[in-house]
């Protein structure tokens, strides 16, 4: 997804002008995200075609996008039907991408290690941003921030009950 998000954001492609997308992926993406025609939101997570279309078209694959409306969005459905995938067993969690446009132009990209991989790590700030966006759905802002501070010095925490209390609703 990094690859498609990055291309989508950088080139600002008109997705209606895309003729075809060729995407080479590894064995796990091929088998674990193999739902060709997702119909409900949760199936979108397991559809490499939907995920790729979403990343290219909207530049952000976030939690709130796995809805029934989004997976059935005609614009994204049209785009995902233009995506052909091929298995490359050597590619792991990376990806190789070729986008052919209707005017004959093409864009190519390759990513060997996705963001978050030990060889392409999230910075602590990126990780904390992900955490904050997720945690705020369930607990107060004060609790969200207290947990960041407590976990940063977790080895000094004397009783894990002090951590859990912040992670629960009042």
């Amino acid at each position, binding site marked *: *997804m*990094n690859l498609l998000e990055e291309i989508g954001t950088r080139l600002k492609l008109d997705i209606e002008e895309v003729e075809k997308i060729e995407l080479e992926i590894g*064995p*796990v993406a091929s*088998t*674990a*995200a193999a*739902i060709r025609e997702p119909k409900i939101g*949760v*199936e979108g*997570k*397991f559809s490499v075609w939907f*995920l790729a279309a979403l990343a290219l078209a909207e530049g952000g*694959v*976030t*939690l709130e996008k*796995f809805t029934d409306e989004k997976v059935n969005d005609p614009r994204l459905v049209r785009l995902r039907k233009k995506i052909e995938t091929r298995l490359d067993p050597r590619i*792991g*969690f990376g990806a190789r991408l070729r986008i052919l446009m209707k005017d004959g132009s093409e864009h190519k990209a390759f990513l060997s290690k*996705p*963001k*978050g*991989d*030990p060889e392409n*790590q*999230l910075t*602590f700030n*990126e*990780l*904390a941003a*992900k*955490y*904050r*966006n*997720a*945690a705020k*759905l*369930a*607990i107060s802002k004060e609790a969200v921030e207290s*947990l*960041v501070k407590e*976990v*940063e*010095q*977790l*080895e*000094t*925490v*004397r*009783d*894990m*009950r002090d*951590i*859990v*209390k912040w*992670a*629960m*609703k*009042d």
Partner: protein
Amino acid sequence: MMPPFMEITKTLAEFVHETRFKDMPEPVIQKAKECFLDWLGVTLAGTTDPAAAVIIHYCQSFGGRPEAGIIGSDIRTDCASASLANGVIGHALDFDDYHDETVIHASAACVPAILAVAERNSLSGQDLLEAMVLGIDVCIRIGLGLGDYHYQRGWHTTATAGTFGATAGVAKLLNLDVGQIINAFGICGTQASGLRQVFGTMCKPFHAGKVSLEGVMSGFLAQGGFTSSKSIIEGELGLFEVLTENANEGIVLDRLGAHWYVMDLSIKPYPT
């Protein structure tokens, strides 16, 4: 050269028993803290998933005395039920960390049981980190031993190998002796299951919950004197013979205590 018959189960039990927080390098502890923070975030967000309401209702209906919290709720229940609920909720969004080669969602499998027992017994952050590093190490080593065929055949390694990680972590927190840890592995190992057929349903995160429950149950049963096989991993009818073909026994113990697999976990920027 590895000996023709390795006592994998016993060696891993000794490793869990003997290894201390002070043996773990600083970057290893730092990575464990990052994985814990990430797990907290994805679990809190996971409370918005429909699976969370179902499992919380189940735990409210059947749970016992208030020993441990269900994250993101106001409910405290027995630590086995809390670990089940937090396991399901933590993996509900599929937004949690994973190990590339084995595809094990290691924190999702290990943290809920470890956190619930740490909370129940008023243990420290250092205790939690120690157990977490060991649990993650054990489950990934076993996942590597099971090899590609195991996952391709349809097994969900987060479940089948993850149960050993949750159990190792709980065993460490309970300060089990080597014999008890071997039994704990035997108790969890005979429950090792989880099919990829259920991907895309609530039963995928259920696997993380059930291994957390198994970790708590296996640790406490072993502590109480419950017995099992002494060679659940390498035995004639054990994990490596029954659930895969051509298991890689050598990789399980390779660089034990020198390479820490928590360092190899990927943290997902995307919820897929």
